[in-house]
């Protein structure tokens, strides 16, 4: 017998399994990044006054601003991809999913130049507590981006979207759940940007 409530919602909870699952997963992700953000606060309070701000001035605010815009656009195109599926338009879905992928790739390329720029100036995670938490937080966020991209590529290629022909609802749900994850990764960056670059 098939596990129920994969496509249609359970009446009394109003949920499908995967949507509840992803929300609980995101709750755990909040605790993961929450742990690291609390570490940031803890260490900032313990550091000499001005130390964090001085090291933060080494970072490039313009690059990070571009990256913020890039990620927000990727979230928008992710919603558009899902909406296209709901409007029964697979070719538009492919286009929007492609844009999302492209945005996340741009984000990673910019991040790569930021990292190597630091290394050229002999700034490493071991240089200061601020740089340590900067590289750890953005590195972990980058791994989340890469994880999301792997799933996106899978859904973007025929091997992933061939499900559309037989079970369109199920496929749209998959994209929606991926979208929820992606918005979360975006949201983490929205917090990282001011905390690391601006404060």
């Amino acid at each position, binding site marked *: *017998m098939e596990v129920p409530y994969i496509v249609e919602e359970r009446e009394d909870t109003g*949920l499908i399994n995967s949507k*509840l*699952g992803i929300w609980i997963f995101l709750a755990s992700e909040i605790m993961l990044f929450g742990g690291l953000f609390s570490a940031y606060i*803890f260490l900032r309070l313990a550091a000499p006054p001005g130390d964090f701000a001085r090291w933060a001035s080494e970072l490039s605010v313009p690059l990070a601003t571009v990256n913020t815009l890039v990620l927000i656009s990727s979230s928008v195109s992710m919603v558009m991809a899902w909406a296209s599926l709901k409007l029964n338009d697979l070719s538009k879905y492919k286009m929007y999913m492609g844009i999302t992928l492209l945005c996340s790739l741009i984000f990673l390329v910019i991040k790569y130049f930021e990292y190597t720029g630091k290394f050229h100036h002999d700034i490493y995670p071991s240089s200061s507590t601020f740089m340590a938490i900067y590289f750890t937080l953005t590195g972990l966020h980058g791994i989340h981006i890469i994880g999301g991209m792997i799933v996106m590529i899978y859904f973007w290629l025929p091997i992933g979207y061939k499900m559309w022909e037989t079970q369109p609802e199920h496929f749209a749900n998959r994209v929606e759940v991926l979208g929820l994850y992606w918005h979360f990764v975006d949201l983490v960056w929205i917090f990282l940007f001011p905390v690391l670059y601006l404060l």
Partner: protein
Amino acid sequence: MSSASHNHDHHDEGFIRKYIFSVDHKVIGLQYGITSLLFLLFGFSLMAIMRWQLAYPDTPIPILGFLFGESGTLAPEQYNSLGAMHGTIMIFLGVVPLAVGAFGNYLVPLQIGAVDMAFPKLNAASYWSYFVGGVIMISSFFMPEGAARSGWTSYPPLSIFENGQTMWLISMIFLITSSLLGSMNIIVTIVQLRAPGLTWMRLSVFVWAQFVTSFLLVLAFPPLEAAAILQLMDRVAGTSFFLPSGLILSGEIVDVAGYGSPLLWQHLFWFLAHPEVYVLILPAMGIVAEILANNTRKPLWGFKPIVYSIIFLGFCSFIVWAHHMFLTGMGQAMSAFFQTTTMIISIPSVVILTSYFLSLWGGSIRFNTPMLFALAFLPMFGIGGLTGLPLGLAASDIYLHDTYYVIGHFHYVVAPGTIFALFAGIYYWFPKITGKKMNEMLGKLHFWPSLIFMNGIFMPMFIQGLAGVSRRLADGGVSYAHASGVLHWNEFMTTSAFLLGIAQLPFIINIIMSLFSGEKAGRNPWDSTTVEWAAPSPPLPHVNFDSEISIHHTAYEYSVPDAKKDFILQTEK
């Protein structure tokens, strides 16, 4: 299960698909069960070697002595290694996977009348992630650096500089991933896959306990993962998250950026590790509830207060963590807060235990093996819980902290507490899992010596601890004058430990013997009320039940007045 493979003919599954990379919750539950029981045995053996050293410091370890160099005795760093690995293996690879991975996986879908877990493939991924984590943890013994030796708590700065810690951290990341996938799955399964008619207050205490436990795992483990990542950075990238400025190692100032804080690790670690205590105890309470109601033949006394207490315990377990840190000088206000919350959290535990005791009142008790273990759980957990109170008060904890008193306290909770409940569960559900009953005589031969020798090991720890003997000393504290009056207990404790090991033989023999020649058990050998007993024994692969399940009763309708039998299955119309 993809829809393409959906048919009722599962005979074409190959051996590997069916028993190794299965997505059936029952097979995965058994995989968890067997693996974690082996880890329990391994963790126990590590402890047996340490106990030999404590009782007979200068006598070479029998049989296994050659593993530890020419002298045949443990060097201090080897002792530390075994200690760290004993704790880690028992908690993260033994008890929790057995209580949540095995019992949760096998029984939760059955007790809610579901066909499987909500995400069968994630379930398999969870087991294999656990397996890989376990392999990495064990393999660290064979690395040139050796296994981790900084205690299961891995406090920095020691853990940053000690050998073997990197493997420990990598293994933990796998184990955390595994528990995350598993517990997420259990939550979704309970919310989404309850059979028609199974409302929240009709769930058994066992399912409630697994539900709350899963939330604890989902929310408490990630901060430890964060901490593990930071510690890994400290070890491999030269950062100093946990290293203060001006730290001196071997007479020289350590060359790091500084401004880190060892206290930060302790906060992140105990933010997991206190809820982890409830992860250890809640499933045990759930198992005991099932067995008590079944063998007293009456409804559980105070079902609702028990459920509310479990939920309250879950919430409170997130705000008591710093009672492990009274000695760190974090300040009086913090201590006052955390000792208050600690006193508050003891209330729901007492409510649950009292309800269990009152459930016995007026029952006609059947003293079978599962019931004996469940009954022993009550006073053993009681001793463990009550001896915890002086540790929760900052003033008395300053004296007792890191003494054998602490070791005695938490071992009473986990060993004769949780592990007895898990034994009870194995005896109780074995007929459901295999279709055969376990042997009662061998069961009693397992129970009575285990009960006696458990107390033989842990009771003297209170005596030693109150005398001020510290934990984690490779020589057991012979160089301290205050310890001299109580160290003679070590021989007694070590003897008890070895006898406890021998007392497990009837259990192992019983499992193997019953598997082949046990008395046949029908669907419901214990005349029980909960849903899993409506399934065939063993339940059918992939579908569990052979008829449509709908629920018409609460979980413990025993001895209902005017009923034909003294129990009403939840599925009966």
